[in-house]
Structure formats: structure tokens, C-alpha cells
């Protein structure tokens, strides 16, 4: 047992080191390559009000997506589960889009993330009510898929009804996900929810381990399954809802990260949580830095980049699963 424990320590330690490096790189990354802004006044403004919020949000958003993915995959006992499955991402997007569409976002900047948070909260409540009292994974997946389609349909309606082409472009661009032009206000708005969500999700670790043997064995091992379900859904809603509210929809991080780390921690759901939080931060921060390095005339959005990295990964997962199923 010792070597695996060391393995987990090593996974967490290396991910923490990588996260630290990615955070530093994000802080040092300027419009003209790496470097610190010159001049005392410029330094204060650029470093504290532009670069720091971006790096902090990247770390928070990545941690939220990674941890929520790990918890959901553990709870549903399915390596293909990801935070978007719960309908929370869709709800947060819809809330933010309504804030843009109604013009509230133009009046004061915080309206957009507040709209997103409200949307995420409503979506999570609806999913929990729809799924009802049963503890099986299937009802939760069905409720999440239903919620996602409702939110998607209403978002499309908002784009369709937008008063002018600029509004629809703004909505579409916002939905592609980005960390650029965020301020400390965004950090203060999102951080408490994300941190509370992470704390809730981490509490489920032992229950998720027990669930590896099925629901009845988990209950016999003293697991309070309804409580675990509630913590997974509410924790994901807080963390991913807040992340989506400030950064837009960023896909695939919650799917890939737990999947890649699982072999490093002996496949134990409990050991995956902290490592996934750190690796999620690494992935989002690195993607954001690489995007800023790319010499494109138009900004490539973060959500687009994670999708472009993530989709081939998904194909690889399909091929790998198919190979394993062959005799």
C-alpha cells in the first residue's frame, strides 16, 4: 500500500509544482511575450489589475472544473461524465446571456456574473427536484440532460431575439469562454462560491471510494448516499456555476483531467480530488498562456482552445475503449 500512497503524494506534489509554474507564467505573460511591465505606475496597474485577476481566475476556474469532473465521475461511476452533464453550465450560460440581452451587463459589469450565478443556482435546484429522491445515477443524468437542453434552447432564443447584430456577437463570443479583460471584481465575485464548492466536493471523497463497490455496499460501509448526491450536485453548481459565470463555458477540462490522473493515484476516487483540482488549474492556465503566445490577429477563445484539444482526446478515448472491448 505504501508505494501508492507515495504515488499519490508524488502526483499531488508534481501537479502543485506545475500549477505554481503555470500561475507564474500567466503573471509574466504580456502582450509582447514574457516580462514584467516597466515603470512603477504601469507595473501597479498592469500587474495587479490585469494580470493578477487573469491568473487567479485561471487557477480557480481550472480547479473548479477538475474537481467537479472528478467528483461526478466518481459519483456516477462513469469516466465519461463531466460537469456540463449536470445542466449547471447551461444554466449559468443562460443567466449570463439574459444579463447581456437585457442590457443589464452594459449598465454595470457585475450583472453578467451575477446573472450566471443565478442561472446556475436555478439549474441545480431544478435538476435536484427533477431527479427526485432516488439515489441511482440514471435519474441524475436524465435530469441534467433535460436541464441542459432547456437552457440551450432558451439561450438560442436569446441569440435569435437579440436587438442588434452586436448583441448577438457579444453573446456568442461570451459563450466561447475567456479569461481576458477580467478584473478583481470578477475574482471577488467568483472566489467565495468556487472555494465553497471545492470544500463541499472534497467532503465526498470517502463516500466516492465506497461507491466503487456499488450503492448497497457503499451504504453498508456507512455512506450517506443522499447526502453525497446533494454535496456533489450543490458543490458542482457552486464551483462550476461560478466559474462559468465569470469565464464562460469551458468544456473538456472536467472530462480530461480526472481521466489522465486516475492511473497515477491508483484509480481511487478520493485521491483524485486534490490532484484534479491542481491539474485543472494547470490545464486552464497553460491553455490561456499558449493562446496569448499565438500570433493570430483575432483572439482565439479559451473555450475554443480546450475544445480543440479536448475533442481529439475524446476520439482517442473512444478508440481505446473499443480496443479494450475487442477480444
Amino acid at each position, binding site marked *: *500500500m505504501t508505494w*501508492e*500512497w507515495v504515488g*499519490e503524494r508524488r502526483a499531488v506534489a508534481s501537479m502543485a509544482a506545475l500549477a505554481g509554474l503555470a500561475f507564474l507564467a500567466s503573471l509574466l505573460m504580456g502582450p509582447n511575450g514574457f516580462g514584467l511591465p516597466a515603470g512603477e505606475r504601469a507595473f501597479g496597474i498592469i500587474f495587479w489589475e490585469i494580470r493578477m485577476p487573469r491568473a487567479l481566475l485561471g487557477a480557480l476556474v481550472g480547479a473548479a472544473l477538475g474537481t467537479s469532473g472528478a467528483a461526478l465521475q466518481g459519483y456516477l*461511476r462513469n469516466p465519461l461524465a463531466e460537469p456540463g452533464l449536470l445542466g449547471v453550465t447551461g444554466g449559468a450560460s443562460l443567466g449570463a446571456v439574459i444579463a447581456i440581452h437585457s442590457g443589464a451587463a452594459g449598465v454595470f459589469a457585475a450583472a453578467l456574473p451575477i446573472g450566471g450565478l443565478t442561472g446556475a443556482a436555478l439549474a441545480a435546484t431544478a435538476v435536484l427536484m427533477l431527479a427526485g429522491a432516488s439515489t441511482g445515477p440514471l435519474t441524475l443524468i436524465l435530469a441534467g440532460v433535460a436541464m441542459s437542453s432547456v437552457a440551450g434552447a432558451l439561450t438560442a432564443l436569446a441569440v435569435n431575439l437579440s436587438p442588434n447584430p452586436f448583441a448577438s456577437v457579444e453573446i456568442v463570443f461570451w459563450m466561447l469562454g475567456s479569461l481576458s479583460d477580467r478584473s478583481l471584481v470578477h475574482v471577488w465575485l467568483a472566489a467565495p462560491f468556487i472555494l465553497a464548492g471545492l470544500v463541499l466536493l472534497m467532503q465526498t471523497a*470517502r463516500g466516492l*471510494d*465506497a*461507491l*466503487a*463497490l*456499488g450503492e*448497497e*455496499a457503499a*451504504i*453498508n*460501509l*456507512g*455512506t*450517506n448516499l443522499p447526502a453525497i448526491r446533494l454535496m456533489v450536485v450543490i458543490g458542482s453548481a457552486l464551483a462550476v456555476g461560478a466559474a462559468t459565470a465569470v469565464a464562460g463555458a469551458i468544456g473538456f477540462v472536467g472530462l480530461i483531467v480526472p481521466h489522465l490522473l*486516475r492511473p497515477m493515484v*491508483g*484509480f*481511487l*476516487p*478520493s*485521491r483524485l480530488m486534490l490532484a484534479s483540482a491542481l491539474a485543472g488549474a494547470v490545464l486552464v492556465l497553460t491553455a490561456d498562456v499558449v493562446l496569448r503566445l499565438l500570433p493570430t490577429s483575432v483572439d482565439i477563445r479559451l473555450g475554443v482552445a480546450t475544445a480543440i484539444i479536448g475533442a481529439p482526446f475524446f476520439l482517442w478515448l473512444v478508440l481505446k475503449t473499443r480496443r479494450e472491448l475487442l477480444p
Partner: protein
Amino acid sequence: MRLEARDIAVALGRRRVLESACLKAVAGELIAIVGPNGAGKSTLLRSMAGLLKPLSGSVLLDERELGKWDRGKLARAIAYLPQSRAVHWPLTVENVVALGRLPYGAGPGRLRAADRAAVEAALTSMDLMSLRTRPATELSGGEVARALVARALAQEAGILLADEPTAGLDPAHQMALFDKLRQIAGQGCTIIVALHDLSLAARYCDRVVLVKDGRTLADGPPDEVLSSDWLAAVYGIEGRLVRIDGLPLVVTASGLPSSAADRSRAAGGAI
């Protein structure tokens, strides 16, 4: 510890699976629940593990209803081994067994000396030492079954409820498992197993409980309960408990015509 199902009725969905089941177990007993498919054996075990809530009647652990027990205390008092042998992630065998220590605040990678000793003893008794670092998902059905039994043993509960623990095991490991169950019963553990192998029940168990159509029909020593009359009444087969070199064996012949089964049931009478 004493575990008692007092005249319970249990429904799964809309179907009433148990109508009226009674079973009382005291410390040191090894009890087999036998009966045809769909008789309600698993439902009785799951109810006694506190996984299903009876519609009427009650399940009492030390004279106290299961629902009134603290979750953690219940987990340290009753170990339940489900019939399904699911291991959802490729956990190593020793980590699967270490999950049995969750009720003690320990678990895989977080074992204190007492936990470690329990895990090692469980691995040894189920002959798993050579498989301990193998992923459970790459084992044969019988090997997974042994790993899951070891998990329940590592839980070190006073009561062990096991749903067909020997299904899929080779004869040597079936005997090894029952020798182990006898041994822990000798140490004061209460064990109830749902079984299909009547010879194993006759050979190892102190009592046999017959279940049919959601009712516990007979309860007593194997010699009484596994009689030709009861076998005909419950399974509709001709069967007999014989002894070869002193070891009991239940031999069975072809199914009786149903009229003959009815006649035997009439002859067998009620308890």
C-alpha cells in the same frame, strides 16, 4: 450481537416480495437461508442489513430498530456482502479489501496498525496474498468474489450477512470460505448466508431457514429442515439428506409432478 427480523413484509417497487418473514439470530450462529429463485432470500438479507425498509414488522439489532442506529455504528456492527460483484474502478485487491475499514475512519492508503492487521488477515484467509496488487477488474469471477468476501471480513463486524458468497467459487475455495465462516462464528460472530448449495448448508450451518413465496416456512437444524418432505414442498423435487463418511450430502432427483408436490406439502404441514 442479536439480529432479529420480526414478521416483516417488504415491497420492491409495487411487488410485495416478503409477506411475513421471521428470523432470529444470536451470537455464534451460522445460519443458511435457502429457497427457490424469487422466494425472497436476498430481500430478507437486504432488509436485515438495513438497506430496505419493511412495510410492516421490524428488524431489530440488540432489541433496537435498525433505523434508530447511527450510520457508523451500524456499519461496524453489520457487514453485508451483496450478490452483485461490481468493482467499478481497477482498484487493487488490497485497496478493495481496505475499503472494509471505511467505517473505522480508515481506508485505502490510510490504515493504522489495527486496520492493517484486519486487511492482512482478510487477504490471507481468502487466499489473496499473491493477487494483492492486481487490479480487481482483471481477475476471474471467483477471484473477485473472494476479494469482496475479504472486504466484508475486514469490516470486522459482529454480524455478517452474505448473499450467495460461494457462487462462482471452485470447491476448494467454497470449503475454505465456509471453514473461515465457521471459525469466525466460533469467535462469537453471527453469520447469515443465502445459499443454493444445500449440501454446504447441511454440512456447515447450525440452522437452515426455508423461504418460499415471501414467507419463512421452516427454521431448524439441517437434519430437520432439509427433509424429503420439505424439499418436495419448497422446491418440488425429490431429495434426501444422506451421510457419506459422516458428512451430510443432499442428493436430489428429478422434479416431482406438481400434484405430488402438493400432496407432499399437505403431508409436510405448517410449522
